[in-house]
């Protein structure tokens, strides 16, 4: 075996070893997307027939906007995604900083924090459905006790508070996840950097913005991206808590997809909606990555 051949082989070996995984991964991603793309141009409604009936051009895309409450679902989904991620990040950051103070009882707190994230969202949904029940629910009772205006139809039954309530339950469940991961990030920061800043007279506030946050940036950026995508696909909580109501007040894109796909069995429209969602999420995530990592390699 010649030296040049061995060199070439060794250079290509990693690619060869990676190839099966990459091919399988691409197939798993691309096949369903390609299948959905093809279906999005066909009239295929299982209520009308078991197989695609005819090529329908862009009709399914038109139906998404004409028949389903797509615009309001998109608005709700974006609100839930952005506000939920924002709230969970900052609450999580606050808790992580608190854990990092090494106060008494923080060990127990760390163990307890993980508990909400271990609950299935459906279970959390049912739990809060009872807690938010206007007739006898604990939260309305407590809030009414401190003079907070509780809507007569309950937080889940009021068009102004239903989506907010879903976000609140999601925040209750997933803030600890942020807290624990950010706490792990805080532990990884070299204390000497902070000590040097302290010697230079930096305040705690300045140290947080100039040292802690920048050093947490890679992990925080990843966390935010993952949670935003999860929130963008929120279904379980919406289904259990409000079923998208009242009216369309808490309707999300995932709930729209569920209705169109698993209730109406309109495969063509569902496929078109899937592709619209894929495009929206891809644009948001790529813009996010561009701004977060534009000066870094990732």
């Amino acid at each position, binding site marked *: 075996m010649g030296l040049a051949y061995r060199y070439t082989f060794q250079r290509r070996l990693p690619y060869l070893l990676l190839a099966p995984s990459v091919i399988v991964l691409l197939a798993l991603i691309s096949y369903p997307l390609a299948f959905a793309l093809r279906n999005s141009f066909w009239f295929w409604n299982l*209520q009308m027939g078991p197989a695609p009936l005819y090529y329908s051009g862009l009709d399914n895309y038109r*139906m998404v906007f004409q*028949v389903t409450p797509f615009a309001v679902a998109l608005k709700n989904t974006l609100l839930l995604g952005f506000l939920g991620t924002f709230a969970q990040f900052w609450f999580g950051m606050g808790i992580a900083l608190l854990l990092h103070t090494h106060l008494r009882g923080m060990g127990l707190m760390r163990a307890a924090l993980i508990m909400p994230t271990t609950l299935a969202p459906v279970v959390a949904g049912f739990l809060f459905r009872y807690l938010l029940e206007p007739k006898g629910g604990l939260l309305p009772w407590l809030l009414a006790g401190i003079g907070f205006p509780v809507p007569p139809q*309950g937080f889940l039954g009021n068009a102004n508070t239903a989506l907010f309530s879903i976000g609140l339950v999601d925040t209750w469940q997933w803030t600890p996840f942020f807290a624990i991961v950010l706490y792990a990030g805080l532990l990884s920061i070299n204390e000497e950097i902070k000590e040097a800043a302290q010697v230079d007279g930096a305040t705690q506030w300045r140290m947080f913005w100039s040292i802690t946050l920048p050093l947490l940036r890679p992990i925080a950026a990843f966390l935010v991206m993952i949670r935003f995508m999860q929130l963008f696909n929120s279904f379980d909580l919406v289904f259990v808590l409000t079923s998208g109501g009242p009216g369309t007040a808490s309707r999300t894109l995932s709930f729209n997809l569920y209705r169109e796909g698993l209730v109406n069995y*309109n495969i063509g429209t569902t496929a078109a909606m899937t592709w619209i969602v894929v495009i929206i999420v891809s644009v948001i995530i790529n813009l996010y990555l561009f701004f977060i990592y534009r000066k870094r390699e990732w």
Partner: protein
Amino acid sequence: MSKQGISRRDFLKVGGAASAALAGASPLGSLARVAAQGDTAINVLTVGDPWDLALQSVTDQFTEATGITVNIESLGYTALQARLVNAFLTQSADADVIAVDQMWISQYADNGWIRSLDDFISMDSDANFDDFVPECLYSLSTWRNSVWTLPIASYAQGIMYRTDLFEAAGIDPLPSSVADAGMWTWEDYFGILEQINGVDLDGTSMYGTTVIGAQPVPVVHMYSQLSASYGTRWFTQFPEAPWDFTPTINSDANLAALNDWKRLYELSPPESINYLWFDAGTRFSQGDIGMFYHWTPYFYLVNNEGYLTGTPSPVVDKFETAVLPTLTAGGDQVVSLGGWSLGMPSTSANQEAAWQFIKWATGSEAQKAMGEVNVKGYQFADFSRQSNYDDADLNAIYPFLGTQLEMMKLGDGKVVRPPAPIYTSLEGVYGLQINQAMSGQVSSEQALGTTQTLFENILRGNQMIPYGVDSFDDTLENTKALQASLSGM
């Protein structure tokens, strides 16, 4: 449309071997015909409704009589539909007997996913097919002049009201029979609600009523009753031929109904805008609702404090049932008739055993046995057979059966919620608009205008306007004729 039948030869092979055992046998004796199948097992997919609990409690009787093992699996409504459709699309023999919602019949039958039961019925005299209440068959089981399923639980709608509250408020009892309901109108109904709303009864501030407000399906189930009583029809012509699915949902009658529906909501707990079926029933059983209308299973379910809990509710012996009012005194009435039936997937490998089970479970004896099951209270009175309504034992347990049967006889499941193809898509947008009107997000006029537009878009998008497929004159009279024909009459 595919309509499969078993061959006469196959049927006679099984039937002939058992025919000698039929004469003079006990009610279950006729099932001995399949005893030879010995180790046969069938899989039954049902839905977690109250009747399922009763059915599971008596299924051993079927196994004892036939030797056929029955594996019952209960799923939620959406899960059942998803599982069935997946099984049909992949042509896998997931189950031998399935619970079918009346709204799925047209889809399943037209796609050939379930098989017609006509041949089984016509060749099996002990099916006692003529005993079924025709309105139940018509609403739950027939499509294009074939019987695809047999009803196992039929639901009409009717009124429940608090007798102690009525007495305290000096209001006369409501009519429990159509014969006594000549002057009983929806305006009377609203008048009573306004009179009892806010009344203090033994320290409890009463709501006049409660609605089922959750969108999209639950609210349609309750609203469509009021709307149909007011004369609303969904389409220009259906189920009578020729079918014309041009929507007529934005009508003066429906506008009046929606405005009155909002009045109903104003007399209900505010949170009922999110109520599912059992939420409304449970609220009545908790004691602060004066009167409401609902599906007839709640005639017995409200005896429980919670849904199927078995704990007696505070309203036991304090409520009565009544017939629904009409729009005008002595005017026409149409009652929502829904429920569940049992069908046979075309892919079933045990079709004879499956038929035996369907026949048994929907038969008069098994239905009576289900009605007599007393686990956590009596939990089944959703009969579809005249003989069960005439049964003295059952009437002693369920004293409201007379009222329920009268509502059934006025029932028309093909008008109130027409089981036309793509019904579920229409119901989805309709329920959403009603709910939005209740919450004040849109006006009644806007809600119905939007519904009309969306109906047209959906129906045109699905090639239902104009309707290019053959229609069938799907009337109650034709179902009665089919029933007589299959009964050998």
